[in-house]
């Protein structure tokens, strides 16, 4: 048997390699550096690593070659067909890395807890025991969170870039496992945090199993794991179509779980609430980008020719997701849970964009494509979500972060700036014009409408009205409601400049994308199509 030496395109894959390399380096640092110096070194390392990867992404993006049969795409299929570096990949990489920068900045926040990070002192110490108290008096803090974060980022980069199902599965696991761990590492309310991690892990493991099963069935149908080969099999209409149908269904379960779509959304509120808020902030933005990137690639590249089979399924999922997310959010009394259900609703809006796939011949010259719409929506939602969760970090009472509605009452009078920014992010999520969220919403609704999915768009609009209600109600709570006399309320604690900068950048981006969306939309347009 011949063994062919694989060729690896190191230059094009450099962002991925940098992130993974920094993650491994972080593990080494953890082993050899004394505890008191680790935080500074680890956070710097992670920050520099992400920045370097971002720089590499831009460099790669500027030098992509035209590719594809019709010249609509650009880039290359690398690593023996298992990793695809094309325009959409570059856009998604850039997005993930930008959110990762924000994530590192929030992870490094130590001012809010008076000189210590928001992560558990010693994860192995059982909550409420002497061991935990000892770890806390010694001022211990896990700095492993940085390598874990970097591994998760690596997985997120790989996920939407995978060129075959096997690589996609590996990426799914690489991005998920560190996140499960990170969710359980909160310093405060540890039981809640650990419960969240456990739930996330168990359900995530199940969904991975579904994905694996789906892979096997699709392999049985197409005789290959490769997206291009699967596409060919679908186009040529191989036998055993039932295998394909079941395969699509099971693969979708895995992906829909990751994005938090109904009926696989049950983990979202618990995990968003229990995880350390810095992790939630990064995860809510980053995971969504990576998972939707992967979903787009799978559905458009591998299964694009079979869209009449999966589009109806996505219609139903989109409608359910939007309605459940928006309606259940009304009943929440916790800011993080409200944002979690709003994330579910936004997943529905994103799927509305995904199902707007049309072939190039059906579109007018210069018309927005569903890929562009989803990419823009991911950008606009990501910055708003990252910013909103970062603001949740700084609103605190004596017991740490305070996310109960009651505590936020009248925040607008006590801290107009923080409440104003939070309201601004909520308005963006609600899709009010002159914010990024509006442009994103317009784009995904338009592509769905253009593809004839007007019932989904009508439901989306109805859900938007419901969603507006709970956002506006919360703004009213912050600005126009006075707290009960004597009630304990949350105050804004001064955060480190890094956190402040993250929030400021998110707010500026939300405004900028709302007023001048042109440049970023052009980026999405220039990203072109997926290549096979």
């Amino acid at each position: 048997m011949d063994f062919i030496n694989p060729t690896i395109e190191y230059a094009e894959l450099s962002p991925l390699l940098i992130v993974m390399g920094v993650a491994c380096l972080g593990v080494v640092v953890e082993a050899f550096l004394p505890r008191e110096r680790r935080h500074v070194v680890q956070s710097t390392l992670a920050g520099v690593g992400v920045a370097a990867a971002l720089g590499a992404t831009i460099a790669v993006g500027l030098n992509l070659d035209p590719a594809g049969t019709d010249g609509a795409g650009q880039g290359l299929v690398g690593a023996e067909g298992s990793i695809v570096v094309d325009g959409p990949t570059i856009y998604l990489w850039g997005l993930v890395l930008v959110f990762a920068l924000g994530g590192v900045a929030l992870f490094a926040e130590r001012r809010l807890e008076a000189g210590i990070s928001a992560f558990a002192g010693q994860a192995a110490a059982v909550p409420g025991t002497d061991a935990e108290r000892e770890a806390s008096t010694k001022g211990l803090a896990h700095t492993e969170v940085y390598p874990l974060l970097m591994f998760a980022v690596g997985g997120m980069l790989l996920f939407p870039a995978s060129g075959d199902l096997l690589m996609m599965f590996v990426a799914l696991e690489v991005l998920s496992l560190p996140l499960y761990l990170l969710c359980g590492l909160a310093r405060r309310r540890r039981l809640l945090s650990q419960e969240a991690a456990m739930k996330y892990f168990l359900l995530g493991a199940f969904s991975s199993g579904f994905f694996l099963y789906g892979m096997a069935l699709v392999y049985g149908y197409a005789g290959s794991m490769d997206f291009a080969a699967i596409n060919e099999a679908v186009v040529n209409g191989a036998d055993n179509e039932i295998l394909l149908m079941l395969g699509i269904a099971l693969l979708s379960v895995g992906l829909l779980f990751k994005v938090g779509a109904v009926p696989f959304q049950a983990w979202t509120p618990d995990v968003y609430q229990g995880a350390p808020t810095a992790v939630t902030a990064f995860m809510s933005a980053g995971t969504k980008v990576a998972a939707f990137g992967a979903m787009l690639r799978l559905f458009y590249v591998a299964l694009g020719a079979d869209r009449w089979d999966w589009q109806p399924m996505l219609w139903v999922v989109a409608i359910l997701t939007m309605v459940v997310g928006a309606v259940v959010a009304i009943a929440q009394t916790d800011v993080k849970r409200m944002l979690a259900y709003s994330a579910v609703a936004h997943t529905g809006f994103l799927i509305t964009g995904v199902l707007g796939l049309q072939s190039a011949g059906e579109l007018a010259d210069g018309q927005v494509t569903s890929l562009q719409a989803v990419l823009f929506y991911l950008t606009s939602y990501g910055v708003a979500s990252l910013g909103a969760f970062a603001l949740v970090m700084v609103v605190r009472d004596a017991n740490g972060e305070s996310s109960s509605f009651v505590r936020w009452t009248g925040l607008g009078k006590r801290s107009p700036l923080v409440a104003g920014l939070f309201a601004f992010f909520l308005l963006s999520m609600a899709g009010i014009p002159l914010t990024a969220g509006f442009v994103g919403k317009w784009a995904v609704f338009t592509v769905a409408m253009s593809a004839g999915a007007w019932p989904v768009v009508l439901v989306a609009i109805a859900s938007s009205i419901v969603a507006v209600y709970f956002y506006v109600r919360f703004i009213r709570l912050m600005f126009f409601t006075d707290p009960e006399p004597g009630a304990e309320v949350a105050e804004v604690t001064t955060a480190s400049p890094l956190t402040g900068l993250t929030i400021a950048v998110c707010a500026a981006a939300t405004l900028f994308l709302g007023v001048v969306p042109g440049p970023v939309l052009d980026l999405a347009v220039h990203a072109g199509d997926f290549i096979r």
Partner: protein
Amino acid sequence: MLTTLILVPLVGALVIAALPAANARVIALGVTAVTLGLGIAVAVMYDVDGGMQLTEQVSWIEAFGVHYALGVDGLGLLLVLLTVVLVPIVLVADWDAGDENPKAFYGWVLALEALSLAVFLATDVFLFYVVFEATLIPAYFLVGGFGKAGRSAAAVKFLMFQLGGGLVLLASVIGLYVVSAQQGTPSYLLSDLMALDIGTEAGRWLFLGFFIAFAIKAPLFPVHTWLADTTEKATPGTSVLLVCVLDKIGTFGMLRFCLGIFPEASQWATPVVVTIAVISIIYGALVAIGQDDVLRLIGLTSLSHFGFITLGIFVFSSQGGSGAILYMVNHGLGTAALFLVAGYLIKRRGTTLISEMGGIEKVTPVLAGLLLVAGLATLGLPGLSPFVSEFLVLLAAFDYGWWVGAFAVTGIVLAAIYVLWMYQRIMTGPTPPEVEATPDGTLREIAAVAPLMVALVFFGFFPKPLLETSNPYVADLMIHVGVTDDEPTVALAEEAGR
């Protein structure tokens, strides 16, 4: 020029937000005065022959076919002038409304002014939609932050209705994009869309979205329920901005977008719309009669007035169109005067309930006189400007069908009841001892509403400037819609004025 007109109040709002609160009022007054000057300059530069003028056009979001496009025509000019005139008047009349939080109050008022002007000047549907929705944010914070108890619930109700309508409109705006993309290159420019051949069925659906949104905005029966709650809880000044400026967007939108882009569908919908308009006229007036809260009452009279305006628009004749546009201006002047004078009285009596006022006529004769003039204007007394527009609309309504006119005329009778009965209950009767020392209107208060009073009388006898501005626009619109009427309408209108 038009961009400057929008930018001045917008920058003013930002300056107020940045500087200490003590300067807020002075800056706000200065900025609105400059804006007023710019508005007058636009009017001077405007050529009365009609058409879109002073146009500006820059590609904004290329991928969406969206332009930053502004322009002013007869309809837009009148509403721009109404806006720039009313805002400083409100600031002077409702002098201490923002004392609790001056930065927020004056900042939001200026932002509202800037966005409203942009709404009336936008000639790109996407741009219009953006600023149309964006006006709600300042309005929400003005209603929710200033006024009496229960205002935050009223603000939420207001915003939910408006955003609900806005999202319905969004569906139609998106539909327009899809239709225009199907026919070549997607574009949101009003001129492109007016030339677009939208299929009958698609056109009717899209029209529906636009009309629902504007009916909520205007408001019309049965989506008016936010109106009275909002005017009741908000300050009188905020109510003026909402009812006299923002609500005009509804009827403005009907003319510019419903008739402009969907002429066929508009005529198809006429019977239903006319019915809704007539119901609004009568229902609004009837409900107004029964109100005890003076601010609620004035709010509901507007429902009746918006019924008249919509009727004028949808009977499809030059008289009706000109009447409706005049009505929009006159309603702005008359209702603003009514709200502001009622606000003066509320401040003196400490209540908004009509049943608790009473008997102040002899103590404050000037205020009584102002209230009477504003009230008589509202009920359409000949010699005051609302009469002209009401007469034109009714004439057109009778022309459309005698039964429509007959029903609409009852609105005038009912108006006489609610205005005169309100005046009687607020002003006449034995003077209670505790109000003996109530001061009459101060110089500032009188000066604030004086321009409105002068305008009401002036345009009552001399409506020519208004008609000359609106007639070319209406004539173009009627040609676009495909309606010809052969009566010499201008001559008739002038007769009506005298």
